């Protein structure tokens, strides 16, 4: 029943295609849980954990913030084993935004990827995703970590090579912070069940390294699999390379992608920065509902 539609008509020269993928077979959890537990790690430099925890709590989940301690070798060992055992009891692990390690050495999320490559953490993560039907997500620095680990788009932690996608420095050469418009490209994810393909959602972005780059062939494959979650669009709703709408110059204006079965979602836009009465001078719809969508996945 999978449908894969590409809007070829708009793909005129110099225009980016708008990806569309609709399916009624979205991954589902086998065991229902009323209030899924969300583990939110805090690395040195993480700064979006409060907003992320609140967004999950509002969505009906039970978030827990966990500070990774690294002042001494023994503190690291304790953090690793404690995090692994908490992960085993959680249904969702979500990597919040920030500047882990100050985005150093020259490139984001290296501290987080080093942590997740630890054997105990890697095993617990794979157990969650492969055997326990769990979900994983990351926004901004979290997305950078997921993509550099291979969790998106491959669904598992791998040794990445030069053919893997990644996120790098914005072409403008500096941090960008503004509201962008994103268009939902696929519903093939438990995170995206509260929106429809084609919906345009406003979202704040704030990053220096959000430029999605990948080989063309891989992007084609991701599009066919419905793994391209969202694209940056202009006021007319079209994907664009215009820096005022595609703030980092992402290939194909891609803002977010998922793992093959959609259970892992990474995106640059800060969907957790929501609330009543915000952004009053920039009109638009800010509700993507991804946190409550994740909870709904477990409410079977």
């Amino acid at each position, binding site marked *: 029943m999978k449908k894969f539609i590409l809007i070829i008509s708009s793909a005129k020269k*110099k225009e*980016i*295609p708008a990806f569309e993928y609709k399916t009624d077979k979205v991954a589902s959890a086998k065991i229902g849980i009323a209030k899924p537990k969300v583990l939110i790690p805090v690395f*040195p*430099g*993480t700064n*979006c954990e409060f*907003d992320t*925890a609140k967004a999950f709590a509002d969505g009906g989940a039970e978030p827990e913030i966990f*500070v990774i301690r*690294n*002042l001494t070798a023994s503190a*690291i060992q304790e953090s690793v084993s404690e995090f692994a055992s908490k992960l085993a009891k959680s249904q969702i692990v979500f990597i919040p935004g*920030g*500047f882990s*390690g*100050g985005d*150093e*050495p*020259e*490139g984001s999320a*290296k*501290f987080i990827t*080093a942590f997740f*490559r*630890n054997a105990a953490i890697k095993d617990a993560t794979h157990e969650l995703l492969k055997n326990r039907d769990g979900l994983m997500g990351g926004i901004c620095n979290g997305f950078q970590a997921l993509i550099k680990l291979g969790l998106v788009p491959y669904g598992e932690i791998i040794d*990445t*090579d*030069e053919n*893997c996608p*990644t996120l790098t*420095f914005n*072409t*403008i*050469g*500096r*941090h*960008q*912070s*503004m*509201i962008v418009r994103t268009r939902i490209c696929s519903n093939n994810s438990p995170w995206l069940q509260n929106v429809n393909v084609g919906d345009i959602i406003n979202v704040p972005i*704030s990053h220096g390294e959000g430029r999605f*780059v990948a080989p*063309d062939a891989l992007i*084609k494959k991701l599009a066919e699999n419905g793994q391209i979650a969202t694209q940056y669009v202009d*006021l007319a709703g079209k994907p664009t*390379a*215009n*820096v005022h709408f*595609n703030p980092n110059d992402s290939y*194909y204006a891609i803002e977010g992608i998922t793992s093959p079965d959609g259970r892992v979602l990474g995106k640059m836009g800060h969907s957790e*920065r*929501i*609330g*009543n*009465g915000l*952004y*009053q*001078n*920039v009109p638009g719809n800010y509700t993507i509902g991804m946190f409550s969508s994740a909870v709904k996945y477990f409410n079977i």
Partner: protein
Amino acid sequence: MVYRVYVEKKNEFAHEAGSLLSDIKNFLGIKSVEKVRLINRYDVENIEQALFEKCINTVFSEPQLDNTSKTLDKDAANAVFAVEFLPGQFDQRADSASQCIQIISQGDRPLVRTAKVYLVYGNVSDEELAQIKKYVINPVESREASLDEVKTLVTEYDVPTTVETLDGFTKLSEKELSDFVSSYGLAMDLDDIKFCQSYFIKEQRDPTITEIRMIDTYWSDHCRHTTFLTTIDSVKFEDEILQKAYDRYIDTRKELGRTKPQNLMDIGTIAAKYLKATGKLSKLDESEEINACTVKIKVDVEGEQQDWLLLFKNETHNHPTEIEPFGGAATCIGGAIRDPLSGRSYVYAAMRVTGAADPTKPIEETMEGKLPQKKIVTTAAAGYSSYGNQIGLATGMVDELYHDGYAAKRMEIGAVIAAAPAENVRREVPEDGDIVILLGGRTGRDGCGGATGSSKSHTLESLEKSGAEVQKGNAPEERKLQRLFRNKEASLLIKRCNDFGAGGVSVAIGELADGLEINLNAVPKKYDGLDGTELAISESQERMAVVVQAKDAEKFMQLAASENLEATIVATVKAEPRLVMKWNGKNICDISREFLNSNGAEKHIDIAPAKVEEFAKCIPDDFVSGYKALVSDLNVCSKQGLSERFDSTIGAGTVVMPFGGKNQKTPIQAMINKVSVEKQHTDTVSYMAWGYNPYISEKSPYHGAYLAVLESVCKLVASGACFEDVYLTFQEYFEKPKKDAARWGKPMAALLGALEAQLDYEVAAIGGKDSMSGSFENIDVPPTLVSFAVTTGKTSDVVTPEFKKAGHKVVLVCPQYNENGLPVKESQTKIFDDVTTLMRNGKVAAAYTPTYGGIAEAVLKMALGNGIGFEYNADNMCNKAIFDYCYGAFVLELTEDMDVGITIGYTTEEKCIVRAGEKISLDELLGVYEDKLEKVYPYNIKCEEKRNSCI
């Protein structure tokens, strides 16, 4: 064994090299350079080879983006050089690399050193190469590095064991004391050192060098506002207006029964004292502990009215930012955050107002001994945003003022706003036996002399000699403090807290209690080799000192550890009022509190402010060309490329984006954020706005300050705030007054202007910060008094400035002005009420208070956000009405045609600004408006979509 790896971005991603090449060609004007390559070099020691190899693709590089090699691939480069930080400078790149490796190894942290290798291609002359090096190496923070391999990264330090006792100090003659001040490079003057000498004669001993350095720090202008506390012996005015304002000050003193000497501090703070005495400041929160401006507010937390404290603070870092813009600006915001943080509040929003000379001028016009303005403004923006973005506070408003005077010294102001539930804050006077715990960053030599250095005269030599006086920020460390202090359990253990501003252990801990015994051997160090004096006076970023009861110390240390923070017990509170510091078993400092608190010898001055000058604006003859000139005025043009590098939305509390409308192009006039409530929700917001116009202040500091206060308040009202419970904090920044009566007259006139505005509108400055060293050789900063206004309100009351719809009537509500060119206060306050009433009744679609660029600027900026045009009412809108200053007024877009104020025109579908047939398109104006600073702060780069071949 030291392992080395070189990492270079692949061609497609080598933006940093590309932008350096563009700077070399276009800014330095060196056309012979054809290509530049940048390679990061990492040296690592105390690591297994296998682990090092594993880290090459995961820590040092990313295979998708980088190429790596074990040897330097010089290719056919014409010149090769490497640059590294000076020893002791914090290097976030090396530090993070080391932490990443440790996470993988789970063992000890290896040593990591980084350098950047530059490969230059093209036929460059030696002279051109020297120019390039000068551009990339700022000698106060970095140096050229060797290209050779190194045997070890371990530095051997001489470990000092004693500090010098200044034998014979008490017997020095006046002449010898004077030589002593200059040979030790002290910031204090001859009177102060004589005062010191008499103290030690009484103590019947010679001081240690530690004591002299510490006293010098304690009494520096930076720590103790010695300029502001100088006694005014006499004043002489040439203007009636200043005389009247001064008389009002004297009357206010009489009314309050004040007999203490008159000084600038008194003029600056008397309004708050007066308004408090008359019951107007009932919400002010006062305590012995001085952290930041603190006000009691009610916050609606999911329907419950809770008692909260709102804290705000402004801070400058002008001197450090001038000489090392990145670190200076980063530590500006870092320091500003720590003040309210030390008050146990959570800092959630920041504003940045800076001052510079024209950054578009070519490099050849840079003054000898100065960094180019373009380099200062861009590097400072990078530094401040790097820190603010990392720590995670929403920087909701960023603006830069341009005036030639700021070539003397940059102005770098950060202002922050914070809040905490009142029940989370405990304030108690420390008692005998209480424990002082040091939290966070370690001490290094880089923090020596920060306080005294910024208070000293700035001369040509500074760039070379200030080397040891600049610091880098470490935002992730400060973020840990933010988290710890937000934890109620930890916060309630703290009896008193002080942040480490300039002055280090001696001042930060020294201020916590009258009697203290500090164990300097316990102070955590970045590296060995620091002596007792350095441990005592070296300031450190990201560090706090807290006083807890002895029984709570262990609990507090545990809570700190759970936030990944280092905590160390370093001092004990004592009953006897003396500051004692022990090092290696000896008392190297033992001074009475009374003497320290004297702040040195009393200083005296006579003041004679200059005559007030006309500050009228130059009005263009022609409407169309006037508008074009206006939009390319540095003080009007778009700052979006600057502002958008700051995270404006973290915290999920940003009520208005910095730029509004569907096009996100109308700048807001006030920063509005929800009060940060960690787990619940609120609709209570804080407002913050600033006001200041250097072109008025340079002619009349009195008018400049008065209007700065008014402008800051008007911006709040224009954004929907009610004119009640408004509080102010000032940033003063003036030329070095020396002993010159006229130079002293500038801050005095400004403070009198600000005093009158406070008394007229019954709003008080409850805090402020002064910087009195804005001079370089013979140029001075303009007399600067920036007013920051703060209040609270509700999300539903907010009004935004972008025009909403075509066909709406736009009116001006304008106060009457008195003979001095200032609004009549009764008329002004009535307008505040009228505007708020119209807003609450839903009659106002958009509002803006005209500032530097008058109504013309207001209309333009309101138009850009949604691309809505405007037609002026030709009957009453002559060029003077459009382009002149119009302080205190409001431009309102009405939702319906009502009879209010003066009709200045109508919004239109046509995207033009029109008056009686004279027409300019918004697009044309926008082009000029955005292009003015494009080369300094890129905003409109073109990204070509080349990647559509496959699908």
